């Protein structure tokens, strides 16, 4: 296709040449008309020169770029990492602005949120525009330049200007864009935004302890890098609820995290399974029975088969050596446990616990050898659970407390590095484009005859 276009350009140049001769040969002594003769002949010579130098000019621009030290890979890397950082800041600003009425943000951060939002929007638009220009130059550069050469060769300078401009644009940007990251490195430095707080998304989390049996209470704890970053109350249907909104969904970070189920003073690891686009099922494999929110039993290193009826739970358990069955309940619950079967090899122990503003008791049956037994649990009373809400933390609040990296200095460095300096550079490239186009297009006509 490029050879086709160049062939058209060559034929146009020939036409221009013979038109020039025709004007010389014509018997019309009108000087304004005759002045075209040397112009046409010169134009055709320049056009043929450009057609012959077509590939050379393109290669030279690439060679110049790598001579300076730029490369398209470096440009692509810079562009994608810049875009992802800018989009991260934009998303953060939008998320925080949406919870600003519920979550206390530092007073130094609040006035910067709107400017940050706007600067990030502008930066996204600008960077994507630059990406678009790079796409044109990288993928369509040769074709566009050929079209430019063909336009340049049209007789009577009809499209010489636009042709020269396209050629100049492709050549200048083919050299200039790969060098952009280098220029930026010399003139500005990227904003210092470590440590960053991961963004979050809404998720509906349901806790169960066996297929179909929801957990009736407790606290869902989110742990990132060993640090507890959020905690959500689990209601009596097993759904985790947000403290700020009082209902599902909750916010979970978009970075790797672990979930634990804290219940009456014990922390259980959870097994997660996605049941839908924003739905997560968390299974607590230790709990065997959980009839009311203030009472449950769990087993370590053994099996248990519960039968539940009104006010009474009977568990058929078998334990391996070292395993135990533990019954935990709050102090608003009146519990009587009775062991049936052979009591040898079973050690009974118990005590009290206090956890997140609640208190209660536990009873543990530890096996010293393999045993099977039946345990009946009679319970009455309110058996409710009142967790101290001030001990809970929504992830949005955690994120809001980690925003001390948002300062006017950050905003300044951000705008400089992603907007001002790249825009300056792009304008410089356009200036060079006009210079090269003027050199090629010769807008200043040479008013002399060809000799």
């Amino acid at each position, binding site marked *: 296709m490029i050879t086709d276009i160049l062939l058209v350009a060559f034929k146009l140049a020939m036409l221009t040449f013979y038109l020039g001769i025709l004007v010389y040969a014509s*018997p019309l002594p009108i000087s304004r008309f005759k002045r075209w003769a040397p112009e046409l002949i010169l134009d055709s010579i320049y056009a043929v020169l450009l057609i012959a130098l077509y590939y050379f000019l393109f290669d*030279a621009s690439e060679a110049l770029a790598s001579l300076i030290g730029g490369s398209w890979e470096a440009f692509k890397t810079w562009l994608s990492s810049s875009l992802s950082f800018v989009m991260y800041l934009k998303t953060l600003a939008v998320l925080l602005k949406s919870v600003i009425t519920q979550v206390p943000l530092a007073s130094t951060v609040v006035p910067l949120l709107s400017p940050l939002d706007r600067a990030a929007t502008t930066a996204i638009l600008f960077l994507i525009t630059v990406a678009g220009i790079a796409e044109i130059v990288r993928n369509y550069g040769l074709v566009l330049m050929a079209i430019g050469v063909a336009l340049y060769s049209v007789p009577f300078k009809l499209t010489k200007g636009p042709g020269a401009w396209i050629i100049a644009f492709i050549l200048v940007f083919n050299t200039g864009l790969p060098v952009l990251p280098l220029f930026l490195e010399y003139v500005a430095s990227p904003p210092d935004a470590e440590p960053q707080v991961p963004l979050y998304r809404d998720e509906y989390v349901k806790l169960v302890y066996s297929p179909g049996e929801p957990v009736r209470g407790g606290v869902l704890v989110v742990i990132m890098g060993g640090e507890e970053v959020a905690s959500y109350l689990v209601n009596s249907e097993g759904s985790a609820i947000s403290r700020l909104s009082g209902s599902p969904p909750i916010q979970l970070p978009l970075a790797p995290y672990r979930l634990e189920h804290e219940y009456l003073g014990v922390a259980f690891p959870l097994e997660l399974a996605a049941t839908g686009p924003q739905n997560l099922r968390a299974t607590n494999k230790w709990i065997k029975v959980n009839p009311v929110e203030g009472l449950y039993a769990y087993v370590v290193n053994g099996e248990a088969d519960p039968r539940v009826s009104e006010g009474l739970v009977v568990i058929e358990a078998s334990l391996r050596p070292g395993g135990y069955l533990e019954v935990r309940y709050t102090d608003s619950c009146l519990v009587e446990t009775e062991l049936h079967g052979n009591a040898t090899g079973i050690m009974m122990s118990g005590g009290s616990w206090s956890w997140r503003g609640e208190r209660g008791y536990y009873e543990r049956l530890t096996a010293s050898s393999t045993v099977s037994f039946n345990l009946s649990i009679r319970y009455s009373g309110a058996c409710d659970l009142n967790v101290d809400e001030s001990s809970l933390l929504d992830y949005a609040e955690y994120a809001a407390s980690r925003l001390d990296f948002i300062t006017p200095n950050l905003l300044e460095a951000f705008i400089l590095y992603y907007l001002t300096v790249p825009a300056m550079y792009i304008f410089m490239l356009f200036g060079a484009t006009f210079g090269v186009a003027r050199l090629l297009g010769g807008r200043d006509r040479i008013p002399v005859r060809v000799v």
Partner: protein
Amino acid sequence: MVDLVDFIQEWTTKVTALAWALFLFTWSLGWAIRGAPLPFSKVKRVSGSLIEDSIWAAFWLALGSTVFNVVVYLADVISQGLIGG
């Protein structure tokens, strides 16, 4: 695209043929006016320019392909010299 090439080629051929014919005509016309007993100096100047221009036309007609060959050769030299080097 090929139609376009043929179209331009057709017109170039027409222009070339016309240029050959016209050059001869203009040259003759120029000499004719020069020889005519008209006492207007402006007319004499016009005839002079007609003769001169027609010779330029003949010059370029004869030399056209040579010039382009030189241009293409120069372009090759530049490409080899600067890329090879």
